[in-house]
């Protein structure tokens, strides 16, 4: 059965107050067309889990500018001044997480792990309120898993069974987020028949993907 749906069918899948993981690094590998649909549809009070908040007009940026997000969990917000403004004004809650820790927390959430132990953030504000464990004489922070209601991802190409291929540096958080959400929706530039992507070429297995939306190349 094909997982491909139209852009019109997609809008009905979103509700207010859901948590959303979004792929992308500085907007590259981010689902720009899905963001546009979310902005048009107007869902609000979202919790957003993403590497960074890109710029006001790229990646997840427009969702933040349009004030649809109530909480952001990200590693970097500095390139989108609107995120910083909303954070300082107390309008949007921002939790800053080291980028590698963010990746591991999402992976833990998707891989059935109860958390991860990392040296990252020891002796910094990141360790505040967290349990520390000693393993073989070395100290680690316990970081807890992250999951979301919906993952909005971007791949270069999908087959109709949802098997995904990414290009260049546009892979980033997309493959791990495909593991860690109840509903996984992927924006792609091209959809091909099942079998056209060889099993050895698949970067994210289609069993993780619920819906595929073909949006072409967004520049």
């Amino acid at each position, binding site marked *: 059965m094909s997982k491909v749906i139209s852009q019109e069918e997609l809008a009905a899948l979103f509700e207010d107050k859901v948590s959303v993981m979004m792929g992308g*690094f500085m907007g590259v590998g981010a689902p720009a067309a899905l963001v546009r649909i979310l902005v048009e549809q107007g869902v609000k009070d979202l919790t957003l889990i993403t590497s960074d908040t890109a710029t006001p007009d790229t990646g997840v940026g427009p969702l933040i500018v349009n004030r649809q997000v109530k909480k952001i969990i990200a590693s970097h917000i500095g390139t989108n001044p609107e995120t*910083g403004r909303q*954070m300082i004004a107390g309008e949007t809650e921002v939790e*800053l997480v080291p980028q590698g820790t963010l990746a591991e927390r999402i992976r833990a959430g998707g891989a059935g792990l109860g958390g991860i132990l990392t040296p990252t953030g020891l*002796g910094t504000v990141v360790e505040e309120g967290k349990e520390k464990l000693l393993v073989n004489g070395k100290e680690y922070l316990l970081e807890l898993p992250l999951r979301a209601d919906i993952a909005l991802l971007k791949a*270069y190409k999908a087959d109709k069974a949802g098997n995904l291929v990414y290009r260049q*540096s546009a892979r*980033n958080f997309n493959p791990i987020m495909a593991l860690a959400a109840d509903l996984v929706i992927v924006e792609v530039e091209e959809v091909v028949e099942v079998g056209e992507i060889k099993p050895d070429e698949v970067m994210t297995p289609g069993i993780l993907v619920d819906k595929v939306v073909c949006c072409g190349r967004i520049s």
Partner: protein
Amino acid sequence: MKTYSAKELIACRVAGEMRDGDVVNLGIGLPTLVSNYLPEGINITLQSENGFVGLAPVGSEVDPDLVNAGGKPSGIFPGGATFDSFMSFALIRGGHVDVTVLGGLQVDQDGNLANWMIPGKMVPGMGGAMDLVAGAKKVIVAMEHTAKDGAAKILKTCSLPLTGKGVVSLIVTELAVIKVTSDGLLLEEISPFTTVEEVVAKTEAKLIISDHVGVMKGLEQLEK
């Protein structure tokens, strides 16, 4: 004697720390200049934390799917490899990156680094910096010796929120090369344009000064 900018001196001296075959992550800004000054016969592989090794200058055609860790268009050398953020940070945290070069707001005599926020002024987020300093085998801080207002940046104790505790291996400024040791900060080299007295005066931290402080090495690369 010809003079050079602080950035040129710092980047050139840091390049001299690279060993042939090193996997290196260069932070945004000044550290990216390091690859311009690599000595002959030293080939390094650059890691970009957004998900690849083999970072190269951008070619004649810009590929919108290929950017560096600053989000700027980039290239990738033949033999490079792309991957996801999990693999990228496993490389960083797992000790598979030999050297990371980062800028600094403050460094102190315990090897603590502060470079990610100024409370009340600038809270951009730490990005991958905390993972890099926790996991790279060698952490080089490449920064100007003092702040724009002349305030010392090499301190007894950092006052800004830390990026990492006890993580710095080497500090390279336009004035000096300072090694972080278990006994404290060891002044190893000074630039040909300064004196030990000037370095001490511009450093708040206590410096261990050996009897034979050297002249900054490898600056002949500046002429090339």
